[in-house]
């Protein structure tokens, strides 16, 4: 790891001021940043530590909203009664996100900013193959090589990677807002639009951009609208029973009246470079019985625009099944 200089921030504002220098990185838990430094994914001259900022800590009920500070760890969120009651899908996503050790360090602020697990991207420098994320305009090795774990929505010829965060999928499903502090002051970013697909980034003229967070901005927390009456679930499909990244995942919340869905929310994970809310299904589900047979065609219609790569057609079926299972579990039907 290359050496860097270090300072502890006394306030969020003082931390943000240091970020005006593009050579400065923020550290909170550090579980991603230290590996970026080791691999050469990121390099910093200065690292500002926000880990001691009490103003970014805490999980509290704030009027009708649930407010989660950026420094809340995945374990704190996963076992906090306010979260397990009002945002069960988020609690479950946090507890399934990593090992117990990592979950004691990793924060919810940093978690959504983790980068893809694409093995071509996660190689140690000097990179032995092209990767547009690591070396712009060099090409995408995964597209011509192995890509069975990659995107089925929103990819381009430049990059086919997926965003691996579990909590981000639950935050998007729950219509959470990220509170952000930047040089111009605070603002909010809806988590349904926080991450960008490669297509969305290219259309905006910045093909390698991954989020709507501007340089120099810091996530300070999240606000979740209360949805206590809804059953929720987070289904993660992976190659091991525990401690593994998702092949696909799905977060769902369901409200029922006499066996029929009245409102439902559902989002897929690890199918694109952002969480993938199935908005068509959310519009169509009210009035649908909570059965596998009734849900499958609704989810299939909402996924009709899936564009799998040659090696990952199975993810379309797997994601459909994860969405159906998440809805069934959320509604208490399985």
């Amino acid at each position, binding site marked *: *790891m*290359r*050496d*860097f*200089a*270090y*300072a*502890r*921030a*006394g306030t969020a504002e*003082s*931390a943000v*001021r*240091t970020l005006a220098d593009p050579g400065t990185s923020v*550290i909170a*838990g*550090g*579980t991603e940043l*230290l*590996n970026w*430094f*080791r691999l050469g994914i990121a390099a910093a001259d*200065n*690292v*500002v*530590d926000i*880990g001691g900022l009490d103003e970014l800590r805490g999980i509290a009920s704030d009027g009708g909203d649930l407010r989660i500070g950026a420094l809340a760890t995945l374990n704190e969120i996963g076992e906090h009664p306010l979260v397990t009651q009002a945002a069960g899908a988020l609690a479950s996503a946090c507890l399934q996100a*990593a*090992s*117990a*050790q*990592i979950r*004691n*360090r990793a924060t919810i602020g940093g978690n959504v900013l983790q980068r893809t697990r694409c093995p071509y991207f996660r190689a140690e420098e000097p990179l032995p193959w092209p990767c547009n994320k690591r070396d712009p305009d060099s090409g995408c090795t995964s597209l011509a090589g192995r890509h069975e774990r990659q995107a089925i929505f929103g990819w381009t010829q430049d990059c086919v990677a997926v965003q691996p965060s579990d909590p981000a999928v639950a935050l998007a499903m729950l219509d959470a807002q990220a509170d952000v502090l930047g040089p111009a002051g605070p603002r909010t970013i809806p988590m349904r639009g926080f991450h960008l697909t490669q297509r969305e980034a290219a259309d905006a003229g910045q093909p390698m951009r991954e989020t709507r967070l501007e340089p120099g901005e810091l996530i300070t927390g999240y606000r979740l609208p209360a949805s206590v009456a809804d059953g929720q679930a987070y289904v993660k499909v992976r190659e*091991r*029973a*525990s*401690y593994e990244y998702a092949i696909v995942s799905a977060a769902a919340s369901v409200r029922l009246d006499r066996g029929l869905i009245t409102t439902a929310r559902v989002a897929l994970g690890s199918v694109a470079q952002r969480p993938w809310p199935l908005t068509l299904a959310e519009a169509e589900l009210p009035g649908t019985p909570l059965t596998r047979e009734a849900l499958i065609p609704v989810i299939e219609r909402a996924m009709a625009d899936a564009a799998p790569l040659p090696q990952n057609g199975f993810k379309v079926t797997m994601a459909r099944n994860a969405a159906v299972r998440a809805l069934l579990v959320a509604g208490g039907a399985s």
Partner: protein
Amino acid sequence: MTLEFTRRVEVTLRLNGRDLTTVVSPRTTLLDWLREDIGLTGAKKGCNEGACGTCTVLVDGRRMNGCLTLVVQCEGRSVTTVEGLAGAGGELHPVQQAFAEFDAFQCGYCTPGQLLSAVACIAEGHAADDASVREWMSGNICRCSAYPQITAAVLAAARKEPGR
């Protein structure tokens, strides 16, 4: 107020019950510092990326990967390594005793991390049954695959000293 970035940082922490002050380069991980500077080699450097759990230590009682923790992030904290588990007279910690009784290792490389993870797992109240131990100990890989014995040892130690 402008923050001052420095390349040498003084850190005061408690290590296995002993207060000490050290000066480190900011990039020094807790794992490297323990092994290279302090000479405590119980925590192992397996993957050095948070995947294997052999570097697990307790920071303020919570288990963490030493390879993903900087010493500068431990200011004012209490760190426990496997060297700090046994009593002053050398009597084994109940979890160590259970690992010995249940033959919960083969090569022993992962054992220091398993022990600290188990101590925390029990204290957290996550050692209720086989399934919960397997889930909450999944961050500690054992390539000899002593998992059944490790699970049995953790459950036995938990029965003697239940957590919260």
